[in-house]
């Protein structure tokens, strides 16, 4: 069974496009975060490189690439070199299942604006967010440093704990849309976004994804005040850059997923679907930065209590209530 060459070409174009857009967007998200945080703190932020500092990501990239690639003594060589990729790749692969626009007719076929429409797309997202734990864990362990190890142990426990509430918050979405396929979930929200039916699940999901991408107030794995830089303390140059960019790719991907699951994906009036999807996704990114500029870091026991004793039971109750409602409605 050999697929049609046009299909292969279209897929390749979509993959290249997604890859390019996501990486550029992640680099500019770093810049946007620095500017926005500066404004929140009554500063100006980076404004020297290019007009309004818009070439700052390029300068950062050159700096990262020309820095020394350092490996600490006693580090586990292969795992140390492998871990940054293990952190960044699952994040970017998850984007494959996100529909970022309405299907468009092209070359006599309906081309879905999505790299691959799996019938288990939602589960693929959960699986890859589970796999992403290894980058954090192995990076910290292989560094042979106490700060990195502490950071990675914290990261492991935090990511596992919040994955549960994140997965449970998605169950009502599956119940409502009756599908694991992300394109069908988006289509089910054509009339009314799921955030209207499921505000509680949305809030649980939002809190969980903030914890999933290790952002303030859940940035315990890399708490600079306590652990220098947490699991990536010992990394330098582009390997650190990969961890860093992976984090921002994660923000974009999780924002896109929250959009897909609760905010109706690419649905929206007047503007083209791709624009709607971008607006909603970037709104999540801005929200994340805004939250980072506001909230202090949680203590470790508070984090665990909040995840296990509050969010998870709440998500379970929400599933029960949704199930009842669906049964009563018939």
């Amino acid at each position, binding site marked *: 069974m050999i697929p049609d060459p046009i299909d292969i070409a279209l897929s390749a174009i979509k993959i290249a496009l997604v890859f390019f857009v996501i990486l550029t967007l992640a680099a500019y998200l770093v810049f946007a975060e620095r500017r926005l945080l500066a*404004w929140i703190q*009554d500063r*100006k932020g980076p404004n020297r490189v290019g007009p309004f500092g818009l070439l700052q990501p390029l300068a950062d990239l050159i700096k990262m690439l020309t820095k020394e690639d350092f490996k600490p003594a006693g580090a586990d060589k292969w795992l140390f070199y492998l871990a940054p990729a293990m952190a960044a790749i699952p994040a970017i692969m998850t984007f494959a299942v996100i529909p970022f626009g309405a299907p468009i007719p092209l070359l006599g076929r309906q081309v879905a604006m999505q790299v691959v429409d799996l019938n288990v797309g939602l589960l693929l997202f959960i699986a890859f967010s589970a796999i992403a734990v290894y980058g954090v864990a192995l990076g910290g362990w292989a560094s042979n440093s106490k700060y990195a190890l502490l950071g990675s142990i914290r990261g492991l426990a935090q990511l596992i704990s919040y994955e549960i509430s994140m997965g449970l918050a998605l169950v009502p979405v599956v119940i409502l849309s009756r599908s694991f396929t992300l394109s069908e979930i988006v289509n089910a929200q054509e009339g009314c976004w799921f955030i209207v039916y499921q505000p509680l699940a949305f809030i649980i999901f939002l809190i969980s994804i903030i914890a999933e991408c290790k952002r303030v107030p859940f940035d315990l794995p890399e708490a600079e005040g306590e652990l220098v830089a947490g699991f990536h303390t010992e990394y330098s140059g582009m390997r650190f850059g990969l961890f860093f960019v992976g984090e921002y790719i994660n923000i974009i991907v999780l924002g896109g997923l929250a959009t897909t699951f609760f905010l109706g994906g690419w649905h929206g009036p007047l503007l083209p679907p791709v624009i709607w999807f971008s607006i909603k996704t970037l709104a999540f990114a801005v929200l994340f930065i805004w*939250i980072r500029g506001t909230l202090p870091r949680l203590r470790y026991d508070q984090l665990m209590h909040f995840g296990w004793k509050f969010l998870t039971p709440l998500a379970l109750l929400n599933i029960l209530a949704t199930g009842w409602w669906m049964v009563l409605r018939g």
Partner: protein
Amino acid sequence: MSILHDIQAILGGMWITWKHIFRRPETISYPEEKRVPSPRFRARIVLTRDPDGDERCVACYLCSAACPVDCISMQSAERENGRRYAAWFRINFSRCIFCGLCAEACPTLAIQMTPGYEICNRDIMNLVYEKEDLLIDGCGKDNSYNFYNHAGIGVTQPRGAGAEELPPVDVRGLMP
């Protein structure tokens, strides 16, 4: 309900940060706009002259002794009339911490702090200032003070002719 209180606290914090996004930044973009420091700002050290145009420093070594980082060094010398001066005077600004203790210690008000803060340099040896670099033409902060007018030493004028000074007492005389 503590949870309502928590939510209110979080949203209140978010509202405050949101307002700050649109506030004018406090940043002074340095090379383009420069801050004007107050006259008493402690930065580059200078050696001043007295109103007559002669240098004030009498090479008493008090500044050098007061300096906590030992960045001031000099060599004293004396003219024929007994007026002391510094043969050479050196301040190493790469060590100076701009504490101002030297200016406080100086009895002749020769060594003074100025607000000129732009003294950074790419070559550290350029930060070692010699006497020619330090000496300025003006009087600095106190432009009427002349140490030898108050010192009671017959260097610039005969003894007893200085300001606020009585003629010397004739210790052998019997008159009160």
